[in-house]
């Protein structure tokens, strides 16, 4: 096969997305809030509609701002409702994202019915297209390197997530496993929840914009769930989920190139195959879990 620079960038961007998502994703899975990414992907609709109405444009920057604000509202409102309303977190997530999605439809039908505000069309990026959108280029040992915007964005998001987890590792750990103890130790478990929710909202919307939704939803849940089958130590789980996610990115891209021609088709969605690869790794981990436990 021929391997191009663009293939390296697609895999690297997918891996950065996996790392950026797997870190907060691990805490989501630990707190039984795995579907948060999916909830945000639906809830962003009113954000897109309002951003369009305010700015009169569908350019990606406005769509991003609108989606990010509503993503944050979704994450925070889920937390509030489950806390003050004494509702299960999953139920609270369901209340928030369906309400916001309906609100978005209402706004679109009332005010912007003749504009295509489908998130698929205006917000979600496509992983396969990221190498075409270059922010910087330089030559390194005679090799021209063109840095895609998505890779830069996701590298920044992944670094921030890593930094937050390094700084608040102990607090997040205690807050995730034993909120009562964390209250007793003097720091507010609630603040750790909000910090995590903000992290999830910003990470998912940035990643949606850069590489599309399916891969983000998968990377938030499946690698952490796989890692939790393999280890019981939080540090190890975080490391494993980031690594497994990155490995799935490589496997997915190779599969997207090589599977379809075997069946007589001409290439398929890389992002979809990466999501499938996370599932494949999960099945392997689960089999190992069955056999050795």
């Amino acid at each position, binding site marked *: 096969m021929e391997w191009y620079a*663009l293939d390296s960038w697609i895999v690297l961007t997918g891996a950065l997305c996996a790392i950026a998502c797997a870190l907060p994703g691990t805490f989501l899975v630990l707190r039984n809030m795995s579907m948060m990414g999916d909830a945000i992907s639906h809830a962003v609709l009113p954000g897109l509609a309002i951003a369009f109405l305010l700015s009169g444009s569908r350019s990606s920057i406005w769509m991003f701002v609108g989606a990010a604000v509503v993503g944050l509202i979704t994450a925070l409102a889920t937390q509030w409702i489950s806390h003050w309303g004494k509702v299960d977190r999953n139920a609270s997530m369901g209340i928030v994202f369906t309400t916001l999605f309906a609100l978005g439809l209402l706004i679109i039908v009332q005010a912007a019915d003749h504009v295509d505000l489908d998130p698929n069309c205006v917000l979600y990026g496509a992983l396969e297209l990221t190498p075409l959108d270059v922010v910087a280029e330089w030559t390194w040992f005679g090799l021209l390197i063109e840095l895609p915007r998505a890779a830069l964005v996701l590298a920044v998001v992944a670094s921030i997530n890593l930094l937050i987890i390094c700084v608040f590792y102990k607090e997040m750990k205690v807050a995730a496993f034993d909120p009562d103890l964390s209250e007793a130790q003097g720091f507010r478990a609630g603040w750790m929840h909000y910090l995590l929710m903000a992290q999830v909202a910003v990470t998912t919307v940035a990643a949606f914009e850069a590489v599309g939704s399916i891969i983000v939803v998968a990377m938030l849940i499946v690698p952490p769930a796989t890692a939790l089958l393999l280890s019981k130590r939080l540090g190890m789980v975080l490391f494993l989920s980031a690594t497994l996610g990155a490995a799935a990115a490589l496997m997915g891209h190779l599969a997207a190139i090589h599977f379809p021609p075997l069946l007589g088709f001409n290439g398929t969605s890389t992002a979809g195959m990466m999501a499938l690869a996370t599932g494949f790794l999960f099945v392997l981990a689960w089999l190992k879990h069955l056999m050795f436990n």
Partner: protein
Amino acid sequence: MKIGFLNYATSKTHSLLLVTIALLSPAWLTASAESRIVATTSMLADAARQLSEDFAHVNGLMAEGVDPHLYRPTRNDLVLLQRADIIFYNGMHLEGRMGDTLNRLSRRSKSVHAIAEAVFAASDREPLLEDENELDPHIWMEVNLWREAVVRMAEILADEFPQHAEVVRNNHARYDAELLLLETYAREVLTTIPQATRVLVTAHDAFGYLGEAYAIEVRGIQGISTESEAGLRDIVQLIDFIVERDIPAIFVETSVADKNVRALIEGARARGHQLIIGGELFSDAMGPRGHWTGTYIGMIDHNVSTIASALGGTVPEGGFRQWRKNR
């Protein structure tokens, strides 16, 4: 070949990957070194094929029945885009996020052209609006407007391949003559529809330019967004309109779901009005390649003939091809 788009595997990681997974590469990737043109929609690809016949290899990214707003490119599409000498896309938001990316790419070294945008930039015609600030990108629906697009494409090709400029000019002259005939045919056939029923009801608003050019009133069932479903009230209002005007047929599209169209038919039947599906129209994509409707001319012939015969106009036996032979 533009520098920087093709960085072959040179670093260690790359070679490692090459060794680890040595599998067959698809044959089309290693095709000959002739000029390469990539077009997003099948209409653009067809025009590019007509113009560059004999010297270039044209790849159309979107196959038949694809909704361009929602098209997701694959890695192989990306390789095609990066290896292309020229990229044609429609622009005006037809390709959704891919259009944004191509637009950004066009500001860098590649020869990337938004044809619909070029058409309106070069002529004094104003694009139709779908809303106060959204332009209607479906310019191929009016043959005369599409002829402008083909002129722009011919200019670009002649500029980009000066060595083939003569061929392009000849191809263009031949093809434009055909398109002119098609325009005449479309106008003749569509004018045979009785004034009262000259209304085109379809699933979404892709037929604005056709309506304007050939004096047909166009009604779409759903808004432009595929996310916003048609409300019950909209459907009821449309049924009232159809019954009142005694419109005999409505149309479905190959790239849009026809659920709403069926709702209209049931609704009209409940009011005692016989409404039929007049046929399937090609809106955002052409028919299968190798088929008559898989060419631009065939697609328009099919649409025009289908609309006219369902709405009470007269269509020559055998459509455009027979009509053309008889001239």
